[in-house]
């Protein structure tokens, strides 16, 4: 098929359409910095979605659970071996992204006879100073996007754009505390959920405005058959591992 460029491009496009269709209804994930670290937040339905990768690196993803698990193990194994053979300080997001994940995603996506990964991944790295905090999003085709203060992954580009727009308009306070970060994360998640429930052509419209009451309704409905999940990389956490999942009561205390 590679001898026939048109058919190859067509196959890639079909694959892209198929993956995006599968990802569209995935529960979005929001990543935010706050005054004592970084938080990843989503609402899941039973299956855990936020994970510790290494001392200062956390991961979340949307997609097929088997693909998430497989790639989570790849990055966890690699970071663990690297941290042991050299030093834990030598494990960083840049190396894991560029030497392990991005090309693995790309290779699977473009090998049209093999299985593609149905996944979008978000990784967070707690830096030595807040300026060095990093969020990295890796698309199913291996494209990488890096942000420093906030990021999102959602089922489609349009959903992510709507969520990013909400974040840009709402997050004026860069020195927010964890409670404020959780509230902003939930609101942004609600925007993403609303957009993912629309028909694809409607999700791309300019109208992404939803009011606070609607947001709370969306969150309330999602919590009927799901749970808010939030993991933090905390500067103040004792020991070398900075990750911990927030307890349900900590999340509950942050809800309006």
């Amino acid at each position, binding site marked *: 098929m590679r001898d026939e460029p048109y058919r190859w491009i067509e196959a890639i496009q079909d694959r892209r359409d198929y993956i995006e269709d599968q990802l569209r209804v995935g529960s979005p994930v929001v990543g935010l910095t706050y005054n004592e670290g970084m938080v990843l937040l989503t609402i899941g339905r039973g299956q855990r979605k936020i994970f510790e990768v*290494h001392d200062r690196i956390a991961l979340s993803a949307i997609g097929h659970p088997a693909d998430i698990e497989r790639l989570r193990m790849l990055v966890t194994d690699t970071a663990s071996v690297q941290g*042991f053979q050299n030093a834990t300080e030598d494990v960083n997001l840049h190396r894991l992204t560029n030497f392990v994940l991005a090309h693995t995603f790309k290779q699977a996506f473009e090998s049209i006879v093999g299985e593609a990964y149905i996944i979008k991944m978000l990784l967070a790295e707690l830096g030595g100073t807040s300026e060095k905090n990093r969020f990295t999003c890796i698309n199913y085709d291996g494209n990488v996007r890096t942000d420093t203060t906030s990021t999102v992954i959602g089922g489609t580009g349009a959903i992510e754009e709507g969520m990013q727009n909400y974040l840009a308009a709402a997050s004026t306070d860069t020195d927010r505390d964890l409670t404020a970060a959780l509230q902003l994360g939930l609101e942004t998640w609600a925007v993403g959920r609303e957009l993912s429930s629309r028909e694809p052509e409607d999700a791309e419209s300019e109208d992404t405005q939803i009011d606070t009451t609607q947001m709370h309704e969306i969150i309330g409905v999602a919590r009927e058959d799901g749970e808010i999940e939030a993991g933090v990389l905390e500067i103040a956490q004792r*020991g070398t591992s900075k990750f911990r999942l927030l307890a349900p009561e900590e999340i509950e205390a942050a809800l309006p």
Partner: protein
Amino acid sequence: MNGKGNFLNRMGVEHEEFALKEVMNHKGDFLNLLKHANYSLKIDLPSDTAQHGVDVEIAHSTTVVAVRYAEGVMIAGDRRATAGTSVIYDRAEKVLQIDKHSVLAISGSPAIAYEIARVLEHSFQYFRRSQLQELSLEGKLRMLSRLIRDNLPMALQGIGGVIPIFALYDLGAADEENGGKIFFYDALGAHFENVNFATTGSGSIWIRGVLRYLSRFGDTPLQEMDEQQATITILRLLDTASEYDAATSGYNARAQIFPNVKTVTRIGVEDISDDELEARYAEAQS
């Protein structure tokens, strides 16, 4: 070929530092993962270096001691490292935190002991990260057993024996219970729970009887002591060991070098600071 910053990879040596070519399910076993990454923990020695198991004595020039006190376990070690009759270092760390609630105190060959501690630390972390749960208390004990047993050839050759004390806090213990636990290992990896105290190293023979006496007949039994009493007791014990054992150091007032003393309680592992040790030393002398 991307050498991933590893010179051995650039030289074409078979040493896969970074590129795990395929994902395998190691079921949380860090040693399997290292094997899959072509990393060998074992050192191959020529067969004629073996002493064939005749009267092999494990060199363990040190004193480490653990006592169960009211809030958990207090564990301490002196700071001296020796080679034969020479003192080669006076700031050695012999009490090593393994995870949030466990500590390994080492005696024996430092190179092997530090490597065992490092493998243990990474193993517990890897299990938690990959299996999404903490390794159980029994699992932790067996992991250490396996590492000590795997090291047996080195121990039998008289160059790499390690006899550690492993102290941890069992978070499964009821609130009113003391979850502090102390385990002693032999060179084959068998572990035994020592209820109230454990000590190992060349200086341990001078204080084991004292520990037994304090535990059985002391005005305040070890297990009822508060942190301050336990600290003073441990400092006095190390001072006693250093008096009779040349391989154990005492408190160096001139250089302000104190023993390592850690507590393992429900809230985790904590160091007792040098300032506090200095104050306790003053009390311990009185």
